[in-house]
């Protein structure tokens, strides 16, 4: 030891002080400097972005808000006139047609049923998805059992209790979009999970069936699936036995989405370590309990962002049901903008922007919710 020399030997006599972390560069100026003006390249980018905003935003604001026409009885209000040389967006059009956008041709006297459906659905969604809501176990029963029956009775009608039957041909607008999207999501997740489990199964027949189904459905465009559901099915099934057109489209959408969902879930199943399967088996859990209690909770957690991604895609894909003659929200706007009474250069743009806003708000909502859940899971360290 002595050969090493004294300077290499050291014994701490006093514990080192614990220091507070260095203060972040405080204030707005500090933030600007570190984030926007830290280097020449960054400064250039910042300036370019500012220029772009200055160039793009004011005209948009002017068109959609400042110069916009908010009220009027027909298309003349949105036409250029001496008082209004450059009219902006024609929100009057949206206002007048709004109930059509929401309900389609649903009989006016019965529209309270649709409103009630929206309310019960919103209640169900909030109850099911709010992590802090009470009794979320019952909420699942409500959402997956009570709500479908209630919705059917409300929307379709039940003559027994005095609700007249409203054929689905009269349904339209946001109502149809919401129904198709909700049914698609609610069915595609469990179906997708089953298909994914099938594809990971050790039984060759089950695996083969799952693979064929997934690959076949994924390999075909949704439009084709919808056409097959609505055009080809009646060829094989007698007219009076053929299910309703909307139901056929619903089945098509649900099956299509479930094939995608299956692949998403399978990714999650693969991500669960082998040891988890072994530990569950070693405890004596059978296949279904192992899957339901140990594997799926972890797999779904990992895939949550992808599941929501699929849902968002599905929500927008619902617009395709118009090709089989179902009157969804986008189709309602299409129909309304063709109204000669509202023939003005701006109505089409306004209608589409309105549709865009609606879809954006819904999809962004889903995305925010997913991020919230992810953040919670990360915080609680469960992952």
């Amino acid at each position: 030891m002595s050969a090493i020399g004294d300077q290499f030997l050291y014994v701490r006599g006093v514990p080192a002080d614990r220091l507070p972390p260095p203060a972040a560069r405080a204030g707005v100026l500090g933030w600007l400097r570190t984030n926007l003006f830290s280097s020449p390249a960054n400064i250039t980018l910042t300036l370019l972005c500012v220029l772009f905003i200055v160039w793009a935003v004011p005209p948009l604001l002017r068109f959609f808000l400042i110069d916009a026409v908010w009220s009027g009885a027909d298309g003349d209000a949105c036409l250029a006139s001496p008082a209004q040389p450059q009219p902006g967006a024609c929100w009057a059009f949206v206002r007048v047609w709004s109930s059509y956008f929401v309900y389609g041709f649903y009989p006016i006297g019965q529209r309270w049923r649709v409103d009630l459906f929206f309310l019960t659905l919103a209640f169900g969604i909030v109850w099911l998805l709010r992590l802090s809501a009470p009794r979320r176990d019952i909420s699942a029963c409500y959402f997956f059992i009570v709500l479908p029956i209630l919705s059917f009775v409300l929307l379709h009608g039940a003559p027994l209790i005095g609700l007249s039957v409203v054929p689905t041909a009269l349904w339209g607008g946001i109502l149809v979009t919401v129904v198709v999207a909700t049914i698609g999501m609610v069915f595609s997740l469990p179906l997708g999970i089953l298909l994914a489990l099938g594809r990971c199964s050790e039984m060759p027949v089950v695996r083969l069936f799952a693979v064929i189904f997934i690959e076949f459905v994924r390999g075909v465009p949704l439009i084709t699936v919808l056409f097959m559901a609505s055009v080809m099915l009646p060829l094989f099934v007698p007219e009076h036995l053929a299910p309703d057109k909307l139901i056929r489209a619903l089945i098509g959408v649900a099956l299509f989405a479930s094939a995608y969902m299956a692949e998403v879930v399978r990714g999650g199943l693969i991500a669960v370590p082998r040891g988890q399967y072994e530990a569950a088996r070693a405890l004596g859990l059978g296949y279904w309990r192992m899957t339901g209690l140990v594997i799926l909770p972890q797999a779904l957690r990992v895939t949550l962002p992808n599941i929501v991604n699929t849902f968002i895609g599905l929500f927008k894909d619902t617009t395709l049901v118009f090709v089989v003659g179902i009157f969804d929200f986008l189709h309602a706007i299409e129909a309304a903008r063709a109204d000669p009474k509202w023939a003005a250069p701006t109505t089409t743009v306004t209608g589409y922007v309105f549709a865009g806003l609606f879809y954006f708000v819904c999809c962004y909502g889903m995305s925010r919710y997913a991020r919230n859940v992810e953040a919670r899971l990360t915080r609680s360290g469960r992952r």
Partner: protein
Amino acid sequence: MVERPDDPSTAAPRQELAVEVAGLHKWYGDFHVLHDINLNVLRGERIVICGPSGGGKSTLLRCINRLEDWQRGRIVVDGIELTEDPKRILAVRRDVGMVFQQFNLFPHLTVLENCTLAPIWVRHMPKREAEALAMTYLDRVKIPDQANKYPARLSGGQQQRVAIARALCMSPNIMLFDEPTSALDPEMVKEVLDTMVELAGDGITMLVVSHEMGFARQVADRVIFMDEGQIVEVNKPKEFFSHPQHERTRLFLKQILHLAGDSGALQPPVGEQPS
């Protein structure tokens, strides 16, 4: 078949046997992992299996609760012969607890939920009763205060003790330990070994794959040395360490004892309780 390992329990009556392995062969593809394994484990017996890695120790252990299947031979656990029949497999697994090298706690469940999962869903125990049971075992492995944390918040040693408690909650007659301390930081090995020593005192049948020679010396009734898929030597720990019979055993012991830094004492006895 000729070289049947010296087995003091061959003559024992049937019901005294916890595990009976006869003529077991297993192949992974062309690779012969287990080669004519014959082993009878008495009730309450504590067996430590050691040997170089790739020698088939873990595979043998995993055959006993049928996490692995085999091609020839038979295994009888607690009087139940393991076959393809899922009912028998589940019955054996209910009766055999297993502790893994990588703990394999369920990360989405709290410590308490990890322990109550199987009693509730396999034994159909009421939740409250299962929780009370889990708490007694968590108490025994000395981490009752961590019951409501998620496994990721625990140290490796604590996680492994939870894994032991989780297995014990099924009140198994037999416990399998698959290198329970190999994935632990050195300073946490002792707390897990202490738990296992305490468990050994309760008379539960234990099969432990481990390189903790101190533990083997202190607790084992028999030490089994496996190499290249075969049982090379079975011996009482004292004899095993002082007079290993087989050349291969001697070589192995020499190597790991050299690593441990001394020849005989290895590690201090692990029986002392932590504070």
